[in-house]
């Protein structure tokens, strides 16, 4: 009998701390599968953010560095410049990447750093109890937008892929989603390509993954995936923004 799906080698064989049904876990497995398939575990260095996945350094079997909130792209720059042979990825939430870390992500992209960023957009600050993120949807109620996100006060959600697409050094940009099997398959394809782009020294690569936070959205895990499909994808269109046909 052949294995169809099993725990990838690059993923540690320990329980993860995420809430039931939180899609962070899915993204973790995908990354680990890609590391396995590209056979790069031994030279990969992952960078953990500050957010619910702050301690995913325990979950990946490669060398890992925990970065300050929002600074993963700067930390990654330091590592990659020190050792260009390594494959370096950052794993960041929407608070981490799109709020406090705005400067770092934009300039890593501008410099065309050879990094791969996995950007987990769940439209909320998961870890700190559900505050509004720059990516929170219009009218979405959060603990710091109790009356919903309102344009007059909060402006409109930030579209990170669209923003980064204007930057020349960002050579591979794709938005994917893990709300269903097709999404999961596409997410994996995109992440794999984003790693390959780095390995062929092309420039900065990022995959935004629409992800769920059932706990802070106040929904069942299954309902949360539906919400991604209905609300998030509507506002954040999936697809490749740059580098689709790049040879790697």
């Amino acid at each position, binding site marked *: 009998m052949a294995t*169809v799906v099993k725990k990838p080698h690059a993923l540690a064989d320990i329980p993860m701390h*995420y809430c039931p*049904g939180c899609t962070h*876990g*899915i993204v973790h497995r995908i990354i680990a599968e890609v590391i396995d398939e590209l056979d790069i575990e031994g030279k990969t260095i992952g960078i953990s953010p500050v957010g619910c996945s702050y301690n995913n350094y325990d979950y990946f079997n490669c060398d890992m560095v925990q970065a300050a909130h929002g600074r993963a792209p700067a930390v990654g720059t330091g590592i990659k410049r020190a050792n260009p042979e390594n494959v370096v990825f950052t794993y960041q939430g929407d608070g981490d990447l799109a709020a406090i870390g705005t400067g770092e992500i934009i300039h890593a992209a501008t410099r065309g750093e050879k990094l791969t960023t996995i950007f987990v957009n769940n439209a909320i600050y998961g870890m700190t109890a559900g505050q509004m993120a720059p990516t929170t949807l219009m009218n979405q109620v959060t603990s710091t937008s109790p009356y919903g996100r309102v344009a007059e006060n909060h402006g409109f959600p930030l579209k990170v892929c669209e923003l980064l697409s204007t930057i020349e050094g960002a050579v591979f940009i794709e938005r994917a989603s893990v709300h269903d099997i097709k999404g*999961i398959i596409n997410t994996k394809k995109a992440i794999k390509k984003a790693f390959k782009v780095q390995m062929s020294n092309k420039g900065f690569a990022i995959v935004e993954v629409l992800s769920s936070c059932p706990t802070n959205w106040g929904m069942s*895990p*299954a309902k949360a995936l539906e919400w991604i499909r209905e609300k998030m994808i509507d506002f954040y269109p999936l697809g490749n923004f740059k580098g689709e046909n790049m040879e790697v």
Partner: protein
Amino acid sequence: MAKVSFKEDRCKGCKLCVAVCPRKIVIMKDKFNLKGFHPAGVKDMDLCTGCGFCAMICPDCVIEVEK
């Protein structure tokens, strides 16, 4: 014939596997696991196509699928 196995004690009872199974054969068990959740399982393995969807969506790497 496919084989779907569950690391039951890792299951958090999120039911995403239930939702995604095209054959609707994944169910939540009555018992509690060590964590205090009702773990998932397959009720009729014969109907399983080994598509792997349940394992692909499981956020906690509970499921392994062989075919």
